[in-house]
C-alpha cells in the first residue's frame, strides 16, 4: 500500500517536474548568452576565457532561465578568481618588490602601500631601485616624505640590485618591518631588462632567505589582453606572487585578471582606486565581480 502511494507520488512529482521543465526549458535564448559574452569581452576578460566561462555556464544544470543565469555566472567567475589572497608580510622583516611595464602606476602604488602599512604601525623602508627613469628617485623620495618613512637611494643610473642590497642591510640595521622596492618600468619583451630584474630578485632571495617576500606585478586596469603576456613573462622571470590592479577608479573593468587567474593562477592582492594616499585596498573578489556584472535590478 505504501509502495503504491510512493509510486503515485513519484508519478505526480514526475508530471510536475515535466511541466516545470517545459516552462523553464524555454531554452535560454541565444541572445542572453550573446549579451553575457559581450559583457565579458567588453570588460577585457578576453575571448578564450569568456568562452571557457560560457561553456561552464551552459554545462550547469541549474541554469534554466535568464533569472538564474547571472547568479551562476558570478559563481563561476568567483571560482576562477579564487579566495581573497592577503599580503604575506608576517613575521617581519619582509620585502615587497614592485614590478611592471612602464606607466602602470608602480611608484604611486608604493606610496599608497607605504602609507597603508605605516598606519598599521609598521616601520617601512623604501628602496629607490628605479634608477633609470628620469626623476623616478625624486618621485619616490617625495612619497617617502609624505608618508613619513625612510628611503634608501643611490644616484640615477646606479645598479638597481646594489640599491636593493643596501636597503636590505639598512632593514637589518634599523629594525624595519617591511622593505618596499621600486623597480624601473620595463616592457616584458626586453630581454636585457628582464635579466636585470632577475638579478634584483636573486639579491633579495639570497639576502632575505626564509623571510616573507612578495613580488607584486602592477597592472593598469585599462590594459587589454597584453596583460596576460606581461604576467606570463614576469612570472617566468621572477615567480610573481600576486597582482596589483591599479587605476580601477576609471571606467575600465580590469577583467583581464580573470584570464590571468584562469591561465596562470596568480591572485590579485591589491587594487588602486584613485590618486590619494588612501586609495589602495585589499582585493575583494565579490566586490570586483559586482562591478564587472552588476546584479540585475
Amino acid at each position, binding site marked *: 500500500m505504501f509502495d503504491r502511494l510512493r509510486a503515485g507520488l513519484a508519478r505526480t512529482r514526475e508530471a510536475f517536474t515535466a511541466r516545470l521543465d517545459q516552462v523553464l526549458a524555454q531554452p535560454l535564448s541565444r541572445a542572453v548568452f550573446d549579451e553575457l559574452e559581450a559583457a565579458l569581452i567588453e570588460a577585457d576578460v578576453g575571448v578564450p576565457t569568456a568562452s571557457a566561462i560560457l561553456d561552464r555556464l551552459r554545462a550547469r544544470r541549474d541554469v534554466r532561465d535568464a533569472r538564474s543565469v547571472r547568479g551562476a555566472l558570478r559563481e563561476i567567475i568567483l571560482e576562477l578568481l579564487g579566495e581573497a589572497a592577503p599580503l604575506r608580510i608576517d613575521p617581519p622583516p619582509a620585502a615587497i618588490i614592485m614590478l611592471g611595464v*612602464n606607466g602602470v602606476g608602480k611608484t604611486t602604488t608604493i606610496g599608497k602601500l607605504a602609507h597603508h602599512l605605516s598606519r598599521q604601525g609598521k616601520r617601512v623602508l623604501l628602496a629607490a631601485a628605479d634608477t633609470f627613469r628620469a626623476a623616478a628617485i625624486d618621485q619616490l623620495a617625495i612619497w617617502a616624505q609624505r608618508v613619513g618613512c625612510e628611503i634608501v637611494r643611490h644616484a640615477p643610473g646606479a645598479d638597481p640590485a646594489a640599491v636593493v642590497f643596501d636597503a636590505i642591510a639598512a632593514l637589518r640595521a634599523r629594525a624595519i618591518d617591511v622593505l618596499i622596492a621600486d623597480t624601473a618600468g620595463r616592457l616584458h619583451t626586453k630581454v636585457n631588462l628582464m635579466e636585470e630584474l632577475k638579478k634584483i630578485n636573486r639579491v633579495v632571495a639570497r639576502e632575505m632567505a626564509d623571510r616573507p617576500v612578495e613580488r607584486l606585478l602592477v597592472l593598469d586596469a585599462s590594459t587589454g589582453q597584453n*596583460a596576460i603576456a606581461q604576467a606570463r613573462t614576469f612570472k617566468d622571470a621572477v615567480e610573481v606572487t600576486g597582482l596589483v590592479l591599479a587605476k580601477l577608479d576609471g571606467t575600465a573593468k580590469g577583467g583581464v585578471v580573470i584570464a590571468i587567474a584562469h591561465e596562470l593562477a596568480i591572485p590579485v592582492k591589491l587594487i588602486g582606486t584613485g590618486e590619494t594616499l588612501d586609495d589602495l585596498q585589499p582585493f575583494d573578489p565579490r566586490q570586483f565581480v559586482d562591478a564587472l556584472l552588476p546584479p540585475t535590478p
Partner: protein
Amino acid sequence: MFEALQGRLQTIITQLTGRGVLSEADVDVVLREVRLALLEADVNFKVAKAFVDRIKAAAVGQQVTKHLAPGQQVVKLVHEELVRLLGGTARDLRFADRPPTIILLVGVHGAGKTTTAAKLAARLKRRGRQPLLVATDLRRPAAVTQLQVVGEQVGAPVFSQPGATDPIAVARASLRDAERAGHDVVLIDAAGRQHADDELMTELRAMREAVQPHNVVLVVDAMTGQDATAMAGRFQAVVGIDGLIVTKLDGDARGGAVLSVVEVTGRPVLFVGTGEKLDGLEPFHPDRMASRILGMGDVLTLIEKAEETIDAEAAAEMERKLRRAEFTLDDFREQLRSVRKMGPLDSLIGMIPGLAGRAAGLAGAVDERSLGRVEAIINSMTPDERARPDIIDGSRRRRIARGSGTSIQDVNRLLKQFEEAKKLIKRVGEFERKGKRGKFPFRLQ
C-alpha cells in the same frame, strides 16, 4: 602567444572552393575569424562588430579574382579597409602661420605623455625648430623634474614655475616666455587624468580655451583594452583632439586600441613611440599597423628590429667571413647574441607571416634556453678551440661539457651542426652566385 589570423584561416581557406562570386556563406565563415582576431587584438567589441558588418556588406557578391582563394580575398578586403581607416587624412602636425605653434599633449595616467613630449621636442629640433617644453603636471610628485631631465637630454629648454598651483596660469605664462625667447613651437605637457574625472576633464577644456593650441594630441598606450573607446570618446567630447600619438609599440601588444580610438575620434595617428630612448618617435604606417592588429605578421618591423640591433659594419664583416668560409665558433656566438638581443624568440617568430600562428609550437623547438646552452658551450672553449674546432678531441669535449654544465652529447651535436653549417654556407655562396637567395644557414635543434 596570440593565435594569429593567418594560422586560423589556413584551414578555412582550403575548405572554401573558388567560385565566381563571394557567397554570403564564404564571407561569414571568414569574417567570424576576422572578428575574433580583432577582439584578441583588443579592438573594442562594438567597433569590431561594426567594422565586420561593413566589410560583409561590401564583400558579398564581389567577383572572386583568379589569384586568390575566396577566404584570402575577404582577408585582403579587410586589410585594405583597415589601412584606409587607419590612414586618415591629415598626416602631420599643423603649424601656425604666425609662430609659435602650440601643441597640447593630453592623455590618461601612464600613457607616456612626458616621454612623448621629449621625443617630439627632439624630432622638432632635428627639423630645425626651437621647441619650448612646458611642465604643467603639478599634481604628480616630481613630474616637473622628470620633464626637466628629459628636456635636458634632448637639449630643449623647459618652462616651469616652482610653487605654482594653477596649470592654466603656467601654460599662459609659458606662451609669453616663448614669444620673448623666440621659440617657434610650444609643447605643453598636461597632467595625466582619468577620463571619468569630470573636474579634471573640465580643467583641461579650460586649458584648451586659455592657450588655443593649434594641435591637441591624445597620447594612447598601445596596450589599452576595451576601454579605449570610452577614454578617447570622452577626451574628444570634452576637450576635442586633432591627432593621436601611440606609445609603447615596441612591446608585443597587437594594438587594436589604435583602431578603436581612430574609429571613435575620426582623427589620424601622427606618430608612434617605440622604446625609452628619446629618438624613438616614428611616422605611422597604417599598413603595418593593420597587419599587426590582424596578427598577420610584420616582416617590416622584424627587418627594422634587425637593423636596429645588428650593427651594419659587423654585418658586413660577417658577410665577408661567410664568403671566404672563415666563419669560426666565435662568429657563430656573435650571431647568436645578435639574434637574442632582438627580443624573445617567440615574439620574433610572431612577426614572420605564416609562422605567426605556430609561434607557440615553434617556441619549444627554438627555445631561449637551448640558445643559452649553445652559448655556454662556446664560452667554455678556449680561443684556439673556437678558431679551429677540429682540435677538439674527446678529452677537450669532456672538459667543455663540464665547464658549460651540459653533456658531451650536447657538445657533439653543436660541433656537428657547426660543421654542417659551414658546408651550407659554402653552398649558399654558390647559390648566390647563381642569383638565388640563400637562407639563414643554421638549423636549430
